[in-house]
């Protein structure tokens, strides 16, 4: 179930990314503004960024992987 949810979320984000890349101006405002897309997008992505950044020693070097990232099939 979790895997299906992940794939659905990725599909939804891909669709939205493709839409925003191909429409602009008033149409984009009409399509996205009414749905508060910016707030929802930020709310969706911030926990994922936190999850990603937890795997890196960001301050000291920014390059060192903390856990063994190769063992994570989601990457």
């Amino acid at each position, binding site marked *: 179930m979790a895997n299906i949810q*992940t794939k659905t*979320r*990725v599909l939804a*984000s*891909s669709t*939205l*990314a493709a839409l*925003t*890349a191909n429409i*602009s*101006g008033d149409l*984009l*405002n009409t399509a*996205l*503004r009414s749905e508060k*897309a*910016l*707030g929802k*997008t*930020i709310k*969706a*992505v*911030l926990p*994922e*960024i*936190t*999850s*990603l*950044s937890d*795997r*890196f020693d*960001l*301050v000291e*070097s*920014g*390059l*060192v*992987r903390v856990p*063994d*990232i*190769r063992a*994570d099939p*989601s*990457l």
Partner: protein
Amino acid sequence: MEISFIRNNLAVIDHIITASPQDRGDLAQHPASIAPAILQALIAFVSIARDNAGAAGGHEGERHLSGKTDTSAAVAVMSCLRIFANMSNIAPSWSRDLLTTEGSLTALARVAVNRTTLSSRIATAQNKPAETADPTDEGELLCLVLAIITSGVLVDENLASVLASLSESSLACMPFQMLL
């Protein structure tokens, strides 16, 4: 956690704030909660994007993520920089919160130093020849970094002092010397 999910959402944020002044204004109200998070993403994505380049850092066995992950990360780096440049330009608080976050200047310097690798990954993502870095993308990466830092210096003169105090070896890239 999916790299592509983060990449797509950052692209959406980039597109929305570029197209919508109202959304840009809304986002300008929340620098403290969002700018550091996107900076963390930038640092992680630069690391992932250069992972297969054989550059210094990391163990040999850690440099073999899939090409798709590399390219997704490089595209996400561009989105992060565009968001920062856009927001820093209109909201001084964004610029201040971003550049006073620990690791920000190092992260931007790392983008400038690795811009050839990053643009090569972006070219791959766009189905261009993988071995050919697009000079347009290289130039855009560098311009975005300089735009972000310039906005910061205009907002906070202390940042200029911080930049001036950094040693040449720690920066190791011409753009920062040009800036000073």
